[in-house]
């Protein structure tokens, strides 16, 4: 089936729906989304969204900017970070005016709490359900503006003709039919890829489909070696326990009952940035100082008192009880670092236009925003609460840029073979000659990424992981689909998702192998120092027949020269 829209948005989390509210004003617009909009993983964000509102502490955007630059281990592009933090207060007020039910101070202002790496109370929150309330509010705004949704549509290919984006081909999951969407502008907002790792805070849907689709269209991915581990994933499942628990005053304790952060970040303690805190916890675990020598430590919030916990951390209380059998009012919560966020992604300029090369040339008609994009405002390590902010600020900018560009964007010729190509791909996926269930291939990928490309990395395991991925690709080529139906074929969906995971995992590992330094979330035990002389630059990676091919882009430094990073 053929559709025509001025703007097609892929993904209905915070970034996609914020872009939709904007794009709706400038022409016809629709949103394709693999899960129903309110099921998007933005809703799982708990702790807050950062802005220097100054409701609880004196604050201004320059402080937010410095914290973010330092948090990024100086790899963030400072012009983009300045845009982000200066836009933040208005973005939050904008969300509030849409009805977002933020928690309040006694004076009736939006409440703000402390958060890792932020030196002021800057995290605007709604208890520990901040992402949830913003996601639902943006969905309500999309209903108000009569945004056309195509829920449970999965994008399979980006149509690029003569260098310009002409639209997308998508699978209607409910019917199994392919749909072609012609568009003048396509905005990718498909989120992250935490499912490449065994222990992950991410939803099953977070398989980086947008990254894979872009890479398959011959576009580069930026800084993919930087994967954030959240320090406090619930043990054993890895689901998120908000940093807000520490923002409210929670402690992290090792097996000896010591506040372990004293050894790693004596000044900021539990409120050090996530890369520092996750490494600290993993070091304690590796050195046998987990609880009972096990693979977890404790997050203790008991001293906050029942009233504060029930008021500000109700979801944590519920999750700890249901998933770990722990009453967090009376017992400490078992936690472990968990794969959480991808700093890297589809390279864009500061208005979401997708960059195609190191010189910054853009792909006409193609935009990206949110976690799937790399502007880069997070550099080598994102601060908590800056991702919801990025999604909202750059979602709006991408939507607005697409609208502004529409008059210049024609209807690029749609490659006639696009839909047939996808059909052929799907047939090939379904008809492998092997007998291995593909779920086993996914397990092996996640296990290997966890073991060989995790918090601590070094050359040997990374090389081993590259081999593993190449072998997994061969096994995947032989894997067979058992569900031959068309109607709501989730096995087919999972298989396409696994193809995505395999696609960019190779880039993540090859990038980590190439970057012979330690910076932010990327830590090489064989190169434990940051190396600004060689590596103060972004990686761009293309998928090549012999594996990923790299180029590099300098970091844009406007205000703060790189310094040693201490917390």
């Amino acid at each position, binding site marked *: 089936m053929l559709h025509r829209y001025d703007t097609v948005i892929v993904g209905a989390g915070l970034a996609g729906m914020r872009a939709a509210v904007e794009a709706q004003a400038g022409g016809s617009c629709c949103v394709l989304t693999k899960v129903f909009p309110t099921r998007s993983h933005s809703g*799982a964000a708990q702790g807050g969204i950062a802005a220097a509102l100054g409701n609880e502490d004196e604050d201004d955007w320059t402080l937010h900017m410095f914290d973010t630059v330092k948090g990024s281990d100086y790899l963030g592009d400072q012009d983009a970070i300045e845009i982000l933090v200066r836009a933040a207060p208005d973005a939050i007020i904008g969300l509030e005016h849409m009805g977002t039910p933020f928690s309040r101070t006694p004076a009736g202002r939006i409440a703000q709490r402390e958060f890792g790496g932020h030196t002021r109370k800057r995290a605007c929150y709604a208890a520990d359900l901040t992402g*949830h309330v913003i996601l639902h509010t943006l969905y309500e705004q999309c209903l108000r503006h009569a945004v056309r949704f195509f829920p449970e549509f999965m994008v399979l290919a980006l149509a690029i003709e003569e260098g310009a984006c002409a639209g997308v081909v998508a699978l209607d999951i409910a019917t199994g039919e392919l749909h072609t969407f012609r568009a003048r502008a396509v905005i990718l907002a498909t989120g992250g890829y935490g499912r490449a790792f065994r222990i992950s805070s991410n939803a099953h849907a977070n398989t980086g489909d947008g990254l894979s689709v872009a890479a398959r269209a011959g576009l580069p991915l930026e800084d993919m070696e930087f994967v954030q581990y959240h320090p406090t994933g619930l043990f054993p*499942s890895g*689901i998120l326990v908000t940093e807000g628990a520490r923002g409210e005053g929670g402690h992290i304790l090792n097996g000896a009952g010591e506040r372990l952060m004293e050894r790693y970040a004596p000044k900021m303690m539990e409120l050090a940035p996530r890369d520092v805190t996750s490494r600290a916890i993993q070091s304690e675990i590796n050195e046998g100082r987990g609880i009972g020598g096990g693979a977890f430590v404790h997050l203790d919030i008991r001293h906050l008192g029942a009233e504060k916990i029930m008021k500000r951390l109700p979801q944590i209380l519920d999750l700890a009880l*249901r998933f770990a059998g722990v009453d967090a009012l009376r017992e400490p919560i078992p936690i472990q670092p968990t794969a959480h966020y991808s700093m890297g992604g589809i390279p864009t300029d500061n208005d979401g236009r997708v960059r195609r090369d190191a010189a910054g040339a853009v792909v006409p008609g193609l935009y990206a925003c949110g976690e799937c994009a790399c502007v880069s405002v997070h550099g080598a390590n994102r601060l908590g609460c800056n991702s919801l902010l990025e999604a909202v600020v750059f979602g709006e900018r991408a939507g607005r840029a697409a609208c502004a560009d529409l008059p210049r964007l024609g209807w690029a010729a749609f490659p006639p073979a696009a839909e047939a190509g996808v059909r052929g791909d799907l047939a090939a996926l379904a008809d492998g000659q092997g007998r291995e269930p593909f779920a086993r291939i996914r397990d092996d990928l996640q296990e290997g990424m966890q073991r060989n490309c995790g918090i601590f990395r070094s050359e040997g395991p990374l090389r081993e992981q590259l081999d593993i991925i190449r072998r997994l690709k061969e096994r995947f080529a032989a894997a067979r689909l058992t569900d031959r139906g068309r109607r709501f074929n*989730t*096995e087919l969906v999972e298989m396409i998702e696994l193809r995505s995971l395999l696609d960019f995992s190779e880039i993540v590992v090859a990038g980590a192998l190439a970057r012979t330094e330690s910076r932010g979330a990327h830590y090489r035990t064989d190169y434990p120092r940051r190396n600004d002389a060689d590596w103060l630059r972004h990686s761009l990676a293309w998928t090549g027949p012999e594996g990923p091919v790299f180029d590099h882009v300098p970091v844009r430094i406007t205000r703060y020269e790189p310094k040693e990073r201490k917390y």
Partner: protein
Amino acid sequence: MTESLGKYTFRIFRYDPERSARPRRDTFEMEVSRGMTVLDCLQAIKAEQDGTLTFRRSCRSAICGSCAMNINGKNDLACHLQVALLRGRRIAVEPLPGYPVIRDLVVCMDEFYDSLMRVLPWFVRKTGFPDRELPQSPADRDRIDNAVNCILCGSCTSSCPSFWYNNRSIGPGALLKAFRFIFDSRDEARGERLALVDGRDGVWRCRTVYNCEEACPKGLRPNEAIAALKIAALKETV
């Protein structure tokens, strides 16, 4: 290693109109260990025993609402229900009742989503905005706390006999959404919304069966919201 809880039997509703017009129940046996949720088991069955088993799931942390289904007779989220806490070793898994089944445990929720549209489901402000946030006291914010935590999983409306009897009934899920705005001190469409829910398909279709209270996996009590709406409708509409 994690402690084994032994073998469990899952009796699962199956329906695939491409293959047969008649639904059936399939039985799967599997070894369950402590800590596994019903969703973990469904995933394991799909991965190892039957790749055609079809269900929705995403966040696996009880916030996205995808995996709402009927488990041992009660609507709940498969992802946050520990198998160890269920009675017995035979677990019946069915789709949410009241909605048309697309395949196996996947239902078509269009009626539920459409019901939201009948309560003006977005924030309305008529008198304009200050430069800063609209002020709201913590107490005023607390009044809507339950309602804003709703994840739109559809479990409540699925359990409502009034909705089963008449799918034009707005149903508890959408009425909770109405409550969320009507009792938001910042919203300025209280009268219009009350009029919308005051009709015979609105709050008065509620016969206080309270299935919705039991069905809500987040413990939100849509029944109390409906009671508050009834009182407001009686007092404030003519």
